[in-house]
């Protein structure tokens, strides 16, 4: 009988362990990802060609007198804008709404909106009740423009640069942290001619 001595050990025996460790580390990082947050296929691409009618009965926004116009692809030319996809039936939209109100009242950043699959009278009432931070609102009643924008859950927020290129997308309600760490720095960078992040 021979007992295998230390000399019979070969480095290859460690291979399964090494492979397992590598896979485990990879999966550990994968677990930290939020599977609900999908990278937008549209980042770096021009906004889809679209023209949405105005939202009937929309109340005026800070700094905008008169009626709120609709939204079309040409409206992004010339300045960095924040595009918010919202609906009156969307609960989380109410969570992020104060951030947009504060932004509209304290900064010159143009905030525009796509009112996604909503009844115009409901959306107008919602804005009258909670305030309207949007300089332009496109009424997307059948949700087709939303699909062109790759919208899969409201609220969604996009940063579009002055050339009409989509530079950033946030899915879900905008939080204080997202506003401070991602959205505002992105807008600031784009305004200074730099990249979004």
């Amino acid at each position: 009988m021979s007992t295998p001595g230390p000399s019979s050990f070969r480095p290859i025996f460690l291979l399964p362990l090494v492979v397992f460790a590598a896979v485990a580390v990879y999966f550990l990082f994968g677990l930290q990802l939020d599977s609900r947050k999908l990278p937008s296929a549209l980042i770096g691409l021009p906004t889809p060609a679209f023209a949405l009618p105005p939202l009937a009965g929309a109340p005026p926004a800070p700094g905008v007198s008169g009626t709120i116009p609709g939204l079309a692809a040409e409206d992004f030319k010339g300045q960095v804008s924040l595009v918010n996809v919202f609906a009156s039936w969307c609960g989380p939209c109410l969570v992020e709404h104060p951030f947009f109100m504060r932004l509209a009242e304290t900064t010159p950043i143009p905030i525009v909106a796509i009112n996604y699959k909503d009844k115009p009278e409901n959306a107008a009432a919602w804005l009258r009740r909670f305030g309207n931070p949007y300089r332009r609102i496109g009424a997307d009643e059948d949700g087709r423009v939303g699909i062109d924008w790759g919208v899969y859950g409201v609220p969604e927020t996009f940063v579009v640069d002055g050339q009409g290129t989509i530079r950033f997308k946030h899915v879900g309600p905008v939080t204080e942290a997202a506003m401070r760490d991602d959205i505002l720095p992105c807008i600031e960078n784009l305004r200074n001619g730099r990249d979004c992040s």
Partner: protein
Amino acid sequence: MAATAPNRRGRWRAALTALALAAAAGPALAVEPGERLADPALEARARDLSAELRCLVCQNQSIDDSNAALARDLRVLLRERLAAGDSDDQVRQFMTVRYGDFVLLRPPVRPETYLLWFGPAAAAALGAFGILRFFRRRRGGITPAAPLSAEEKKRLETLMEATPR
């Protein structure tokens, strides 16, 4: 009595027919009657295509299975594209332009996905190779070791002598 016998048989037949119909009907579908296309061939293509497109809201269902509003919108849109004469690939492209490759339940084969597509087969092949080698070596018996060196022979002799017989 003569009248009840055919009657009973008829009842059995009805029950069996109902059972056969229920079995043939299959599981309930999310596709609503109003969404269907009049042309059965086009509708069949629409069903096949929508079964391989992911519902972005309820991510592990296809838009064919899902009751989500977005899935319904995409089903209707897909049928409109087909009715307008789009090929299957054009419809797939229409979706990926908007939602990325993630919308395809079957990811495309390209360098970034080689590991995904061929990784399991490669791992199995590697394992099979290892097992094959292991057994071939065993079947070949213990390979005769190299003859002892002079030093080893000497050590063996001293050991043999030291061992009480």
